[in-house]
């Protein structure tokens, strides 16, 4: 089993689904001839032709709406946002038209909106965003945000096969930096289930996307330097959340640190804290705490970006505080 990068895994998942199901097609800006700003769709135009890999005008509302219409007619569109920051331009049609289609009009709307997300790449305020929290209070949408090549491929295939709209966030920092084994064959990861990235008994870190790797780094350092046994839960799916897995890890360690790259205020750590309170309050030996980005637009200069975003050292410091609580 050869090692695959996170980016190749996404491309493979896309290609396999297009191979398997002729109703799957892609649309977005510069995804055809150019193969996408990050080359995720590289080669697909040659393989599947211009009817299934469509270069669109710069119109996120236009092509997301078009995807919805095509989905009503039985196709399965996969939209690429050149950067996920531009999904904001389709915010209204996604939250109002697409998300409600099934409930208000019994319209099938199987589609995926995917794109490069997240920071740590010196992209500045408009090429580093993590938009998940903005869509969390929109029933009708699903949200996934994988951290590994295997999950990237498996969740993309699940997203494409899902009968509703799935927002598929890809962390651009991981595209080429993370390699891993992807199980062979038709590898599908069900939406709605978290992944236990590391077993531990003293404390749980619940996180997703790029910070999964920082959390794992921190966990090793804590084991090395403090003899702490830290569990790391990679949520993978943010809507729906895997309550069972969250409950299980809290019951096991009784101490929870939530880590995400989005701003502390309004990030989804809040929702998870609320669920922990509701489901396993009695099991907590310490307050649920957050490690997240500072509440500012993300600045571009390396020193500033590093300062604003959560770093491994922050996770270590916060975990030590929690463990000592």
């Amino acid at each position, binding site marked *: 089993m050869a090692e695959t990068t996170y980016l190749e895994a996404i491309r493979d998942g896309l290609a396999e689904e297009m191979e398997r199901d002729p109703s799957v097609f892609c649309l977005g800006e510069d995804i055809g001839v150019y193969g996408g700003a990050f080359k995720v769709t590289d080669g697909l135009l040659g393989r599947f032709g211009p009817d299934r890999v469509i270069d669109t005008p710069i*119109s996120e*509302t236009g092509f997301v709406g*078009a995807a919805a*219409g095509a989905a009503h007619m039985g196709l399965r569109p996969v939209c690429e946002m050149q950067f996920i920051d531009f999904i904001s331009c389709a915010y209204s049609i996604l939250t*109002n038209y697409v998300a409600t289609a099934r409930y208000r009009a019994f319209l099938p709307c199987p589609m995926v909106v995917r794109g490069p997300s997240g920071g740590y790449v010196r992209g500045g305020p408009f090429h580093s965003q993590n938009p998940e929290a903005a869509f969390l209070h929109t029933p009708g949408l699903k949200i996934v945000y994988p951290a590994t090549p295997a999950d990237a491929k498996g969740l993309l295939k699940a997203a494409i096969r899902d*009968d509703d709209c799935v927002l598929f966030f890809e962390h651009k920092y991981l595209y080429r930096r993370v390699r891993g084994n992807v199980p062979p064959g038709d590898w599908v990861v069900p939406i709605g289930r978290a992944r236990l990235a590391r077993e531990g008994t003293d404390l749980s870190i619940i996180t997703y996307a790029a910070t999964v790797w920082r959390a794992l780094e921190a966990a090793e350092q804590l084991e090395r330097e403090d003899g702490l046994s830290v569990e790391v839960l990679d949520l993978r799916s943010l809507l729906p959340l895997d309550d069972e897995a969250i409950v299980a890890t809290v019951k096991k360690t009784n101490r929870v640190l939530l880590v995400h790259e989005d701003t502390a205020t309004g990030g989804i750590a809040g929702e998870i804290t609320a669920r922990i309170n509701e489901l396993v309050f009695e099991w907590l030996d310490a307050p649920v705490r957050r490690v997240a980005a500072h509440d500012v637009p993300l600045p571009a200069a390396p020193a500033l970006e590093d300062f604003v975003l959560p770093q491994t050292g922050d996770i270590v410091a916060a975990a030590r505080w929690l463990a000592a609580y």
Partner: protein
Amino acid sequence: MAAISAFPPSVPAPVPAPAGLTRDQLLELYYYMLLTRTLEERLVALYRQAKVYGGLFRSLGQEADAVGSAYALDRARGDVLSPLIRNLGSMLVHGTEPVEILRQYLAKGDSLTRGRELNIHIGDVARGFIGQISHLGDMVPVMAGVTLSFKLRKQPRVGLVYVGDGATSTGAFHEGLNFAAVQRCPLVVVVENNGYAYSTPTARQTAAKSFVDKAAGYGVAGARADGNDVLAVYEIAKAAVDRAREGGGVTLIELITYRRKGHAEHDNQSYVPPGEIERWAAENDPVDRYVARLTGPLGIGRAELSAVEARVRDEIDRATDLAEQSPPPDLADALVGVYADPPAAPLLWYRRGLRG
């Protein structure tokens, strides 16, 4: 379109008529225009009895624009319609039953939206019409995608979407029309210029002399017609539908009409210059104009029109009785079907045991 057999059997042999329509079709256009107007009058009565939920939107004076344009579609071939709030007539032409409209306005459990949505925000993709949402402009990109699917699958089907003069100002209209134009989708975009967007006159909506002037900016065919002349509307729409079906791409049609009622029933139209409404009513009512044309040059007898009128009254009476008997929505349904999977949203913790 409704079965011809529904007409009295003793109809004289069809004679050639304008726009290539048969005599029966000419009468059918009259039937739909009248059905639209009468159904809306019935809805007003129910609204006054406080039986209607949400706003009531009228198309009084716009029946020709809605009916004539939708009549150009071919349901049998799977053409798809995307109506707006002033397009009750289009929906009836495309197969929506009056009782479905009534159930919807009365928020009944067996309405097409099971009480989830209001007024004519209803659709039935199986019958070729797509439910609109409130956010203006969105249906244009959606219909660009519906018709893109026809093109990708090489199906000889056409889509027709309406936008009001006001909705042309939205970014969604622009992005959707441009996308459809570049993709040469088989789509007809009908701009219903009825003079107002809520209280805003067209001159404060755009500085363009006419909406058809926008066509060149998108590289699509443009056409303009008197929206209160049902045959002129049909002709121009039919040409656009045929062009789309033959691979000619998008046509932007502007129909000039007038909104004689307020934005919705609550609106007193205080902003309308005195006499304007009355003038349109007296001189440019689409039904009156069509009746004159039918009974005049087209040589249709008053008796035949009376038969249509009787049929309309009767159908709406029966539909109203039926709709009033429909049950209210079922509470258990409230949480069902947000997603295919899971099938229902969970009942919140403090309700468990308490209800549901």
